[in-house]
């Protein structure tokens, strides 16, 4: 087990070979059948405290994003100026913001926008980068050269500056609907980060392409689409999966950063980034405006980074 790709391939071969042995032998084989890489990783993961903590936190955050009313019955947009910037109390656990809205309710409701941005941006990044990477890795030659150069062009853009330019360019066109606001932020995050996924996927695809099972599939007359989808993709998905988990966390952080600059999400959308951005002017007199949304943000990002770390260690047999 030096290479995850070859390990998974080996498991597949034994599965097919077992069709040819007698029933008695097969019975004994199933009882101590070698675990596949995915099973192995899962077995390993369940025993890691890091994974369990991260998983529990993420479940809680997802629950918060899906059903915010489970946690609070206060309307996050209802504001009363008379109670502006009051500190935490029994009525409002996290206090009130500059407009007099309940920070606890806003933080809970803010999870949805932040998580949605993170998940959609990750999906889009993996989709663009993964497709380009697999095509570049499979085709090689001038296609690889061309796609790699295109990736280099986007990789050369500094992340924050690029996002600022893209967001200001497309902001005016989008209008004020929440869907449009979220869509533009997701688009700009994905367009700036897909080259990383592409590079990871490309190198995984190149190493998978040289494996015997791909050569065998080609010798048997499999079409390129079948080789890519059935053989190369499952065997090169692991590193992308790890990157995607960590990227999800960093996208949530990036959304907050852009909102902090006043360019990401904005009212009427409630998100942690928007709350942090609003707190900027009051930070001296009312630090709790910043503290609670920032705390939730950091914990969420931390949970995803921890999950990615744990998955990486489980999938990489060298680390054991």
């Amino acid at each position, binding site marked *: 087990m030096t290479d995850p790709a070859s390990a998974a391939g080996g498991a597949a071969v034994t599965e097919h070979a077992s069709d040819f042995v007698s029933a008695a032998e097969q019975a004994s084989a199933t009882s101590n059948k070698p675990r596949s890489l995915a099973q192995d990783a899962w077995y390993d993961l369940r025993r890691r405290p890091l994974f369990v903590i991260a998983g529990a936190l993420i479940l809680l955050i997802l629950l918060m994003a899906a059903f915010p009313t489970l946690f609070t019955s206060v309307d996050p947009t209802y504001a009363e100026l008379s109670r502006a910037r009051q500190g935490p109390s029994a009525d409002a656990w996290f206090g009130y913001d500059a407009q007099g809205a309940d920070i606890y309710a806003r933080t809970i409701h803010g999870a949805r926008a932040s998580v949605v941005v993170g998940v959609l941006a990750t999906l889009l990044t993996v989709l663009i980068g993964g497709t380009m990477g697999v095509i570049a890795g499979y085709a090689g030659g001038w296609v690889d050269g061309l796609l790699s150069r295109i990736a280099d062009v986007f990789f050369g853009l500094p992340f924050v500056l690029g996002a600022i330019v893209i967001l200001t*360019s497309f902001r005016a066109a989008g209008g004020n609907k929440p869907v449009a606001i979220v869509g533009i932020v997701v688009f700009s995050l994905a367009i700036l980060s897909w080259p990383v996924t592409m590079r990871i996927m490309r190198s995984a695809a190149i190493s998978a392409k040289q494996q015997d099972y791909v050569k065998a599939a080609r010798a048997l007359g499999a079409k390129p689409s079948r080789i890519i989808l059935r053989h190369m993709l499952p065997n090169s998905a692991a590193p992308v999966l790890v990157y995607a988990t960590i990227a999800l966390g960093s996208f949530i952080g990036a959304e907050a950063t852009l909102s902090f600059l006043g360019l990401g999400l904005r009212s009427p959308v409630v998100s942690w980034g928007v709350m942090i951005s609003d707190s900027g002017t009051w930070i001296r007199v009312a630090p709790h405006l910043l503290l609670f949304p920032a705390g939730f943000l950091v914990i969420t990002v931390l949970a995803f980074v921890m999950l990615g770390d744990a998955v990486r260690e489980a999938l990489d047999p060298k680390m054991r």
Partner: protein
Amino acid sequence: MGRYILRRLLQLIPVLIGTTFLIYFLVWSLPGDPFAGKCGDRPCPDAYINAMREKFNLNDSIFVQYGKYMLNVLQGNFGETFNGIQVGERIALAFPVTLKLAVVALVVEALIGLTAGILTGLRGRGFLDNLVLVSTLFLISLPTFVTGFVLQILLGLEWGIIKPTVQSGAPWSQLIVPGFVLGSLSMAYVTRLTRTAIAENKRADYVRTATAKGLTQRRIVGVHLLRNSAIPVITFLGTDLGALMGGAIITEGIFDIKGIGNLVYRAVLSKEGVMATGVITLLVLVYLLMNLIVDLLYAVLDPRIRYD
């Protein structure tokens, strides 16, 4: 080696053109009238608009505009804004400040990151290792502006150890805390990279040979182990200098540093296209050149890598 440098330089050209064109296209395709509000409350007179469109080649196609612009930039002329401010002068004022900040960040992250990485890599599993791993996880999850705000409030306003904002000259001593903030994320990566590299190389054959020869521990670690483990770290630090300069915008905003990020942020918001393209083009240039230098450094540091 000479052929490799040449090939890398040739590869750099299409990427450079692509990235700068992308920037140019994005900035100049900004929807909205670039002259809105430039003449006070009245709409601008036609004569002014025509003169300006002529001056900034706005009547040409975007490709011709870009070509003309790049020809000027290559001669060191970054053009002037709608108000007639020389972009090159502004950049010359702001660039050294950001460079200073990025260098401080790089030094801070290299010092702390390398020390922590070497210590944990050599010791192996244990309390210190777990402590460092958890702190790196924490640093990775902290967005820069949270670190910046917290340090500014605590050190600057509550305890009064530092000045909460940096003076216009940006003296080195005042840049230490902003540099720490800017470099904190990369510090975590440097620590992890060093730790993994040391832990892997510790078991390498040449380390065992060196031990068997009876060399002192100092020499084994300092000469044999560190030199071989430094390669991925130096790569990271090199490419990071470019990234730090591009990412300095948030730190500069918090600590009110008059650097390039500040310049470009205001330029984008006020639709000063010439200023925005100029600064970002320069940053892209720095980033790509740093990547090239790092790639070439590879060959010097690791003679096992042969380019041909």
